[in-house]
């Protein structure tokens, strides 16, 4: 039996992690061990990484090597099935609350693209425009518009159109999808959903009835145009760990309605430029690097706003070395610098005080600029027609090729 999540604790003592709020205890760092413990998921250890490498015959993604995706539920079952020849499909999503995407937003998509390529499996991407309409009080039209705009950045991450279905809730909910929503909803009491998500008597009923919408893409029967003959198909959900509550609920319900529990592979939070106190915020432009930032912006933001672990003076730094625990440039390089050897070298030299903060920042600026530039070029190739094609309800005959 899975550890059930009880009341979401709002006291200052505890860290808060749920789909709408992430904050550490006393403004410190997020304690991921505690989180895994509290949520009841498993740590992703090196044996998994090795197994993925074996099964896919290619080097594991940098996020796996560096422990960015660090927790999972039932990943071993997915891999077992895969080894037997039983495929699976991927499900991830985005809540389109703002036009500006930052690098933190791209992380699950970059990883999902790798999974799609490595395992050669199809992918559904949910744009929860309804959720943002409700939680952020956007108009229906605005949230739909944002969904389409975000879809372009998502497509720019390099998904294969012959294996990917993107949908927005406002467009797609209905039919088989809605039937599953009702099945799920029937299995979750009001008290339960309040317990998981912390709703109060003041919250409107839209919020209370939303969770099934995010749950049912885990079930292949929600997509009859894709998986009509494959009711047995398993689902793997790459996401950030704050989405876990939705899927705990889903996994609880799944066996009761005759479906496989979806498996999860979960990531750390991408720290804000100013330091590891929580998630990046789309409303503070200096807390994050945006995909629309110019090379100049990136240079400025990293140089002026990145929180470093370097010492106050060069002499002190050479003597004591940098504090790698809190150094943001190192953390960012951990995410984005592909070369393991180079990263190790930088960590060693910087930690010993032989390398200065300025050099580390310079390398980071190079890496980020290249990343953002590549994204921008890909984004420029995405047209409205391409978005229409990705979002069309159409068969994907070659989705497992």
């Amino acid at each position, binding site marked *: 039996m899975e550890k059930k999540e009880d009341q979401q604790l709002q006291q200052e003592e505890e860290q808060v992690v749920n789909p*709408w*709020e992430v904050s550490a205890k006393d403004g410190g760092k997020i304690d991921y061990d505690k989180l895994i413990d509290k949520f009841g998921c498993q740590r992703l250890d090196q044996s998994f990484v090795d197994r993925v490498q074996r099964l896919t015959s290619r080097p594991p993604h940098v996020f796996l090597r560096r422990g960015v995706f660090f927790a999972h539920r039932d990943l071993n079952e997915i891999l077992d099935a895969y080894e037997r020849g039983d495929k699976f499909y991927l499900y991830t999503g985005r809540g389109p609350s703002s036009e500006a995407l930052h690098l933190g937003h791209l992380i699950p998509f970059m990883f999902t693209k790798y999974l799609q*390529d490595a395992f050669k499996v199809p992918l559904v991407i949910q744009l929860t425009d309804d959720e943002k309409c409700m*939680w*952020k*009080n*956007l108009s229906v039209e605005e949230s739909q518009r944002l969904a389409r705009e975000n879809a372009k950045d998502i*497509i720019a991450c*390099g*998904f*294969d*159109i*012959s294996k990917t279905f993107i949908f927005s809730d406002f467009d797609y909910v209905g039919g088989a999808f809605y039937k599953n929503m009702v099945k799920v909803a029937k299995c979750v009491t009001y008290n339960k959903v309040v317990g998981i998500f912390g709703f109060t008597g003041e919250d409107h009923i839209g919020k209370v009835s939303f969770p099934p919408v995010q749950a049912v893409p885990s079930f292949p029967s929600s997509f009859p145009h894709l998986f009509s003959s494959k009711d047995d198909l398993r689902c793997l959900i790459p996401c950030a760990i704050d989405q876990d509550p939705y899927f705990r609920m889903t996994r609880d319900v799944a066996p009761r309605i005759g479906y496989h529990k979806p498996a999860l592979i979960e990531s750390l939070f991408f720290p804000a430029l100013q330091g590891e106190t929580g998630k990046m915020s789309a*409303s*503070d*432009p*200096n807390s994050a690097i945006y995909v*629309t930032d*110019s*090379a*100049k912006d990136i240079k400025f933001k990293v140089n002026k706003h990145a929180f470093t672990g370097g010492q106050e003076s060069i002499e002190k730094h050479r003597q004591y070395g940098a504090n790698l625990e809190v150094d943001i440039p190192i953390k960012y390089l951990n995410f984005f610098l592909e070369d393991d050897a180079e990263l190790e070298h930088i960590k060693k030299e910087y930690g010993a005080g032989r390398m200065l903060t300025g050099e580390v920042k310079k390398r980071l600026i190079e890496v980020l600029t290249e990343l953002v*530039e*590549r994204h*921008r070029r*890909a984004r420029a*190739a995405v*047209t*409205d*027609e*391409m978005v*229409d*094609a990705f979002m*069309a309800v*159409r068969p994907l005959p070659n989705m497992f090729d």
Partner: protein
Amino acid sequence: MGSSKDQLLVRLKELQIDFSQYEHPVVLTVEAQAKYVGNKGGALSKNLFLKDKKHRYYIVSALADTKVDLKVLSQRLGLGKGGLRMAPEQALGEILQVPLGCVTPFALVNESARHVSLLLDQGIKTQERCFFHPLSNDISISLDAHGLDKFLKSTGRDPSYVDLEANPPVGKDQPPDLAAFIPSGSTVLPDLPDEAPASQDSTGNHVSAGTKSAAVIAKAVKPSGNVQNVKEKPVNGARPSIPSANAGKFVEELLDKTSTLLLSEISEDSIKQHGGQLGTEVVNNIQKCLREDLKNLATIFKNTAYTEGFYAGIHYQPKRL
């Protein structure tokens, strides 16, 4: 060229707006203006010309003693904390067509200021009359809010007053309350190079002296001379034509990338280092470095070709029987 002060005054008279005018030596600041018209029965105004990161412009017109905090305004507009700054001097001339020290709501009579958003201090409504510059800073006119509104309506604007000193929380469940003031017309204005922004009124006067605000203004902004088409943000509504999956172009891009890498790999040093094995060495490096890049290019090509086919498919006309 923009309207002159005389043209404006004529227009005000035509609209039967009641105003008083006072000529004086050129003034660049509210203090200086106060010396000449401070006791003439009208409240002084301070006027800021601001710009956000997406090159949208705003005039904030307030009573001289209303506190205006750019940080707060920026958040209330939904631009984040540091989203607003003083517009560069050049913009004054190009967009508002007024000289330095002369920002005024009346500048909105000019076509070039069509997309500039106006935020009016509700304090103006509490005063019998308020002083503004009518496009030139050697003259001040005083009129009441009603008259100002009449003028603004004649330019096709709907005047709306805001409590500029308010500081409502902006967060996940509280959308920015001034978001409606974001100009909606796409700004087709040229990307003015970011120079050190001009202070239009004397420094201590207009912005509440939070150190952060000072930092916003004093920040040395380097000219965007360097690098590329990086600043190109697609203008809203401008739809690029459907790019076709061009096999020739695609192959050229692939060859380009490979050639560049090849050339960088083969140098005197590398020849010395690897000798006959250089070929194998280079091939390995190319494969390692280029594999992902080329795959990405290929995926873009595939997606584009698929989209063309999809488009053709949904527009296909079935054969008539």
